[in-house]
């Protein structure tokens, strides 16, 4: 009994990133997550041997189950009956069309916790919108705001909102488990990825609802807390940069010391934080004169040694060699049945007594059919062969 959600079983109908990221957290802490896939109904991108699939589905079991067959739906219900949690992230009509929506499943398993994650939520005029992470980011405002001042939107270029929704989804399930422990009741969680993402833009939203101000892009400038210098500064080398942030007077003094007190650091236009902020463009140019003669690693290390926040703008290669990530075992290696040794990011959550465990790679399609159908559901040989020939396990 040393794992947090140990003893819990999750039926996982999720795909792409948002849903799998949520159930991965439950699996990392010992929940038995059974991922349902099908050659027939499997969406593109859910290829079991891709790096993408393997990264978001480690620690999960996998079965092949064709939900376009009525028998497939019946088997899914039998699984729900012996499980605690169902997670899905289709557009709202999909589970309903299969007859696997909460109103039906709660009759199968009255204290079921079911999490539905969709772009817009299960209700409302836009509920059937087709949405991926990029869609949500555009609608939420973060794409518009992620730009240089006065320039067209650039956005994030990847599906950050899917991670956010996955984290909120995992949190919602853990909350519902806490509630079930007290009341004995399950519940239905309707997660709209747009709403989840919008809760991470709260201050900009309040600035509008309180002050009527429509937030505009700030590039790499600070927004809530004054700091100068602050930004990404060009360093020596091809596309090498270092982020620097100087908040306090003490940090400014240390910064000037590291630079060897060039004359400009003593000029009146930079004497206080507010002066530096007023003249930030000029300050940035002077700081960059210094950084561009040095590697970002050197800039980071001498500033950090002096007590100033600084960090290399790391790319994927840098991350793989990052000494801090290495010392905390951020990347984890594991054996995959066909790919050999594979690696992925572990978990940023370090629990002192019950750490995440990385016991197995993501499943191949139907890898755990035997365990699930024979052991968990107790199917006989004849049932198995009947379903197999009817294409139910396809």
């Amino acid at each position, binding site marked *: 009994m040393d794992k947090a959600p140990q003893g819990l079983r999750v039926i996982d109908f999720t795909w792409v990133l948002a849903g799998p990221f949520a159930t991965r957290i439950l699996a990392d802490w010992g929940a038995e997550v059974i991922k349902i896939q099908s050659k027939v109904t499997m969406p593109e991108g859910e290829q079991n041997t891709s790096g993408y699939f393997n990264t978001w589905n480690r620690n999960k079991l996998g079965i092949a189950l064709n939900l376009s067959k009525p028998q497939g739906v019946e088997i899914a219900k039998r699984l729900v009956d012996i499980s605690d949690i169902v997670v899905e992230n289709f557009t709202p009509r999909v589970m309903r069309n299969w007859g696997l929506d909460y109103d039906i499943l709660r009759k199968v398993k009255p204290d079921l916790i079911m999490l539905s994650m969709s772009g817009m939520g299960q209700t409302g005029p836009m509920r059937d919108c087709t949405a991926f992470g*990029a869609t949500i980011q555009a609608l939420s405002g973060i794409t518009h705001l*992620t730009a240089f001042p006065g320039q067209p939107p650039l956005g994030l270029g990847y599906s950050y909102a899917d991670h956010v929704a996955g984290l909120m989804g995992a949190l919602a399930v853990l909350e519902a488990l806490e509630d079930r422990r007290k009341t004995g009741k*399950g519940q239905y969680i*309707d997660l709209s990825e747009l*709403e989840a993402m919008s809760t991470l833009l709260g201050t900009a939203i309040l600035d509008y609802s309180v002050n009527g101000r429509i937030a505009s892009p700030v590039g790499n400038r600070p927004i809530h807390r004054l*700091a100068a210098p602050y930004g990404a500064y060009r360093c020596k080398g091809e596309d090498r940069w270092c982020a620097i942030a100087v908040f306090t007077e003490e940090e400014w003094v240390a910064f000037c010391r590291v630079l060897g007190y060039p004359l400009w650091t003593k000029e009146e236009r930079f004497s206080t934080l507010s002066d530096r902020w007023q003249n930030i463009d000029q300050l940035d140019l002077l700081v960059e004169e210094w950084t561009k003669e040095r590697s970002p690693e050197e800039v980071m290390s001498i500033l950090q040694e002096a007590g100033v926040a600084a*960090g290399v703008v790391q790319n994927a290669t840098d991350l793989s060699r990052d000494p801090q990530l290495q010392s905390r075992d951020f990347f984890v290696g594991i054996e995959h049945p066909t790919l050999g040794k594979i690696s992925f990011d572990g978990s940023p959550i370090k629990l002192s007594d019950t750490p995440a465990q990385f016991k197995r790679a993501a499943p191949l399609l139907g890898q755990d059919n035997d365990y699930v159908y024979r052991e968990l559901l107790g199917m006989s040989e004849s049932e198995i062969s009947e379903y197999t020939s009817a294409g139910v396990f396809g």
Partner: protein
Amino acid sequence: MSALYGLRVLDLADERGAFCTKLLADMGADTIRIEPPGGDRIREAGPFIKDIPDPEGSLCFWYHNTSKRGITLNLENIKGQEIFRKLASTADVIVESFPPGYLEKLGLDYEELKKINPRLIMTSITDFGQTGPYKNYKSCDIVASALGGQMYVCGDRDTPPLKPYGEQAYLVSSLFGAIGTMLALHRRHLCSEGQHVDVSMHECIAGVIEHVNVRYLYEQVTAQRQGTLHWNNAFRIFPCKDGYILLSLFQQWDTLVEWLESEGMAADLKDEKWRDHQLRLEEIDHVIQVLEQWTLKHTMTELMEQGQAMHFPWAAVNSVEELMDNVQLSERGFFVEVSHTKSNASFEYPGAPYKSSESPYRILRRAPLIGEHNEQVFGEELGFSEAEIAALLSAGII
């Protein structure tokens, strides 16, 4: 009833963990924000109501401290530490974000507090975590975004790396922190013991960069910036008559070409050869050029509505104003009114990140004023007399 009703959280965290404790408070935990006498530095964060700097008027503080109670207590004072220990003995969770080693100097580190309260869970949300060669280094939102591998892939080929808007590093670290706290709570039901949750902001960002680590670890590809083009070329932002629209480039190709053709804007894309996905990827600049001529003839709303009607995952690139006018969000009651007695007004806040049928997540009240609940907590709950409270106040302890 809220799921965390009856649970007590002590909140010592700065901006790194304020959203974590907001989540726990909105889930119903009695969350007591502990600030130094005179108020916390995070109240200096702008913007402010009416743009007047005021520790009681920081919108950033307001949003991240809903549903909490607030007390003041000087943890660097011996008497203050004694009071804190009393509080800690009544608490289930402490969330903190001090540099590693700071609480130990005060004798208030997890090992010490666990002696008086073995069920206590402590969640530490810090720049680099409690261990490792960088543990004493400093970080902040932009440094975390840089070191975590996020900034490098945001922006265009010819621009500097770009930090995503908002203090996302603090928010996402808070989310991981809240999940870690809940995992520790679950485990506590099984063994009655608390544990320490160590969350590193650096790792949190490195853990939410989708393709970046995956492509390096599987294909030895170092992802680069490519402007508004999504990393896998699936989406791109286009200018239109009145703003910008996000289009998917390759879904339902035939439908898309038919649509363009019906307006005489398909150019050569109607050629059979463009049905080859690989060719479209190789000649993506040409595809983009043709699409851009077309999007410029339309408004955001036209493209989004007609596109969505045909199941294209398209979206208007909204401003915050457009987000707040979104009919879907209003229909679902996403924005909620929170009343502020001091300003004698109510303001709209983003509400619940998800809708739970049985244990609703909700904002119970506005953020606390400085020391607003001192009397309640020190007097009614810890049993200090009025005279004792007055003495603590004048000694600068509370």
